[in-house]
């Protein structure tokens, strides 16, 4: 038994080393598994940055303190990128499509406020983009309320008393950045293992593997291990971008490593399965993308799926990426985005890993080589 175990271990290691050597000689495919998640990160950052603050020109005709406070309230609303300018310049910018709205503070703002007269604030909207338009429509009344609450604390008697679940807020970008790590693991594992398996069929070297007395389990585990090691390198590169460039450090590095090690075999094994079934790298690459992207978007990449509720939440719970994103969010930000605990999520991920390895090894049949 120990002799067999030793033999199987040597086969696993030999297959892993062979695949790593092959991968290192094909840098283009390694570059894909690093560049795709980083491209996603950039894409999402652009979305986040472009969608977060509406560029708004403020034409302040009143130098008084209340008018200044109103502008300050707009800046604190986290909805506007306030550009203070003249009426002419604002008109030119809105015509050119450079800004979403012009908010004009009348010259009598302070006087009317002090006298208790009705004040009308003209807002000119470039309503081409409904997302920005609605942001402005929501944010101006909120600005008025918050301005009043600050300027006349005694007059606004309804106040919010906030109790936070977590010690700190999580911004959109740090949340997304962590989700992108999961896409790096998913894509890396599937592409690496899928390509490594497909190339065995393309070049018919699968015969060398399956004509040998080595067990198909050992061969399959070796291929998953090889993919895992290469994916670990590419994921490290993505983590470095997240930590060093986006300044999103994890709360617990050990958790990051542990969750990555549980997730990588899942997608490595799925990659082996896909490679075995498709037998062509040209088919593996698009199919990996087609499988990974919906999984990623379904699984709470932009926020907890429970917020959306309904069918999406149910489907998400059937995917490993759902638990992976939750586990990584816990490792980086300390919160849990699923109803299940982090320990349960990790156990479920472990179950997915065992299942994926079992299924892909079962599909790697010797009879699959015969034409």
């Amino acid at each position, binding site marked *: 038994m120990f002799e067999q175990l030793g*033999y199987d271990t*040597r*086969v696993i*290691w*030999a297959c892993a080393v*062979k695949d790593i*050597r*092959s991968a290192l*000689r*094909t840098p283009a495919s390694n570059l894909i598994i690093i560049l795709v998640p980083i491209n996603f990160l950039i894409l999402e950052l652009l979305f986040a940055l472009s969608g977060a603050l509406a560029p708004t020109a403020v034409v302040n005709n009143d130098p008084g303190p209340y008018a200044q406070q109103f502008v300050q309230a707009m800046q604190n609303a986290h909805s506007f990128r306030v550009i203070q300018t003249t009426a002419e310049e604002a008109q030119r910018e809105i015509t050119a499509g450079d800004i979403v709205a012009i908010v004009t503070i009348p010259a009598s703002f302070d006087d009317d406020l002090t006298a208790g007269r009705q004040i009308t604030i003209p807002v000119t909207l470039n309503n081409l983009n409904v997302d920005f338009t609605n942001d402005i429509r929501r944010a101006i009344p909120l600005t008025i309320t918050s301005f009043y609450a600050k300027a006349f604390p005694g007059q606004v008697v309804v106040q919010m008393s906030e109790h936070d679940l977590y010690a700190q807020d999580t911004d959109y970008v740090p949340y997304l950045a962590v989700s992108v790590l999961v896409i790096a693991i998913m894509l890396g594992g599937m592409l690496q293992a899928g390509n490594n398996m497909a190339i065995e069929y393309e*070049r*018919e*070297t*699968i*015969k*060398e*593997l*399956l*004509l*040998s*007395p*080595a067990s198909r389990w050992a061969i399959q585990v070796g291929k998953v291990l090889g993919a895992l090691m290469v994916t670990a390198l590419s994921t490290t590169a993505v983590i470095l971008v997240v930590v060093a460039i986006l300044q999103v450090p994890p709360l617990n590095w050990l958790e990051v490593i542990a969750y990555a090690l549980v997730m990588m075999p899942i997608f490595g094994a799925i990659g082996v399965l896909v490679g075995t079934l498709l037998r062509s790298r040209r088919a593996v690459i698009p199919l990996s993308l087609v499988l990974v992207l919906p999984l990623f978007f379904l699984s709470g990449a932009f926020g907890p799926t429970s917020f959306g509720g309904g069918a999406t939440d149910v489907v998400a719970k059937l995917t490993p990426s759902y638990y992976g994103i939750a586990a990584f969010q816990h490792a980086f930000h300390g919160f849990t985005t699923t109803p299940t605990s982090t320990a349960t999520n990790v156990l479920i991920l472990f179950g997915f890993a065992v299942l994926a390895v079992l299924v892909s090894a079962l599909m790697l049949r*010797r*009879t699959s*080589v*015969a*034409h």
Partner: protein
Amino acid sequence: MEAIASKTVTQVQKQGSPAIEVKQLRKMFKDFVAVDSLTLSVERGEIYGLLGPNGSGKTTTINMISGLSKPTAGSITVFGQDIVHDPRSVRKLLGSIPQETALYEELTAWQNMVFHAELYNVPRKEREERITALLNLVELFDRRNSLSGTFSGGMKRRLAFARALLHQPELVYMDEPTLGVDVQSRHALWNYTRDLKKQGKTVLLTTNYLEEANELCDRIAIIDHGKLLALDTPTRLKQTYGGTVIDLETDKPLSAATLEKLKHLPGVSQFRQDGVALSMTVSGEQSVMADAISLVTAEARLTTITQREPSLNEVFIAITGSQLRD
């Protein structure tokens, strides 16, 4: 290679059983019968050729012998081991040189050999010595650190040959071993194959080169439509199925009437005409030489006449009715 062979300790079970014994083998793909009640026996230490046109069932048979495909019915034993019930034991005894060489092109020659050694559990202490000896044998030791992807077709074949012998198999299966290689490499591979026989190894060979089968094989099995059509030594196959071939050439084309008479001479089994060249295959003990000469010289001058053994190609066509590369 003899140095390596001297160290070979064969632990082949069931001494005395044939190297391969196939009984009533049948393989069906849905309604299509690929192999039909095939029975054959390959003796230990012989070079056995398996010939047949494309689609004859040759590859399906080999796949079943090597455990890559399961028979629908019948049995296969390799050195007494049942391939269906104990495939792993059989795989240890089998060395394979597939047609496509199946080398890892991103690995060096040495790394390919080491990887094979791991897959076949070659003892670590013997590994280096065996690899060195085999790479020397196929004259690739100096190129051991070159990527196999940079090798020529002949070099790849030689490396695949060395790799197949690394775990000292008792049975070596070669699928078109010299397909697409240069003449030098072909003769080198033939010599290595003959050396295997000298060491008592059994070789199962499929080839499209009948010259190769003629040179190497002790016995040849010709199969078509999944059935065994003929099995014998190359010489006896030629005697049994070919008889004698008479090649004639005249100074002018013969008339249709004379050609008809020649075709219908007693014992003529095949008749081919190409301009002024005629070829007649005569079966059995019949002698038609005198009759043929008198018919031909009655209307033309005979410029050449030869009597020879048939080629294996002619035997193959006589048996299967088709060219090998159909």
